[in-house]
């Protein structure tokens, strides 16, 4: 039972780590700020989500799980808001908030 859960954790964490790798490659390779923004936020938020998912198989009790999920949701909310605003600043002729 616990072995199965461990395998699931390893799979999800590896997938999450892969998305962090993808995000960084995107950052290094994409030409302008908007593309980099896209690479960064999509990949890293998904990476964090997968890592949270992987760790959910390890925690004990619903409260600890709830905390992990809220960490992810908070990061998503902050990421979504800030990305919007950065994009507005970075776009040629765009006006910030």
């Amino acid at each position: 039972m616990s072995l199965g859960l461990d395998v699931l954790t390893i799979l999800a964490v590896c997938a999450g780590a892969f998305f962090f790798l993808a995000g960084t490659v995107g950052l290094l390779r994409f030409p302008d700020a908007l593309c980099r923004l896209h690479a960064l936020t999509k990949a890293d938020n998904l990476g964090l989500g997968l890592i949270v998912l992987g760790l959910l198989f390890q925690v004990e009790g619903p409260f600890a799980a709830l905390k992990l999920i809220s960490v992810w949701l908070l990061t998503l909310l902050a990421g979504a808001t800030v990305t919007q605003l950065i994009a507005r600043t970075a776009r040629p002729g765009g006006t910030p908030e």
Partner: protein
Amino acid sequence: MAFDTGLAVLVLGVAVWTITARDTFAAVVGFVAFGLLLALVWVRLAAPDVALTEAAIGSGVTGGLLLGAHTHLRRTETAAAGELPGAALRLAAAVLCAMVSAGLAAIVLLLPEPAPTLAPQVAANIATTGLGNPVTAVLMAYRAVDTLLETVVLLLALLGIWSLAPDRVWGGFPGPHHDADPQGVLTFAAQLLVPVGILVGVHIFWVGSVAPGGEFQAATILAAMWILAAMVGLVDAPPVSRRWLRILLVAGPAVFFAIGLAGFAMAGAFLAYPPPYAKLLILTIEIPLTLSIAATLALLVAGPPERAPQR
């Protein structure tokens, strides 16, 4: 071990960046990153209480404060950059600083074995406080005088900042006024974040007696949420001359001091708690103290009054 080496190198790299960056904005970003990495280091050093404080104050609120200051000072940057001292002075400074670092490194390498520790004494006496978190026990019981004076230091710093207000806005509203944009993304995010943040703050406060957490961390989160609401224009700071505000600011230290004095009658010493009531008394101190510290921290970030009070 490999992880620790990597983390230490990363911390040093970000620190070097913070010092050498040409642009002040980049340096401030570097400093926020530095604080976040230090929080990881504190977890590695088995100090989750410190990690919480570092994440909240060291990185978060200090970062916000420095960013705000940089916004005002941006135009002065090019003028000041011309005042860089000469190469000889810089070299001398580098040699001096290298010597300081080498001396400290030698001390770290020559620390006595076995390491002196007060942990057994804390473990032996923690039961009398009724608390489960040794760090909170140290802050609120064994070194309570430190903590009391620390809250006074915070108030003194706030008085110092308020006294920098020009005469015409004396006792007025701190900081600029922000207009809320009801359709704005920021407003929406703040409306979601602030209640969650307050909930997290209460949680951190409440678990502080048995697990990592406590009044300073909780107060910082509450303060940050208030500043966030103020930044997007959901709330405005009250004029600093309001009586209720001043009562709020001193309530925590005053209750702390009063219970400390009562210690003479109840347990024979200043800030001594009679064992059966220790936990109750500590909680009685902590609740107003958290609110006072939160208000003080928020107003420290808001700065001196900038707008005259309306009559």
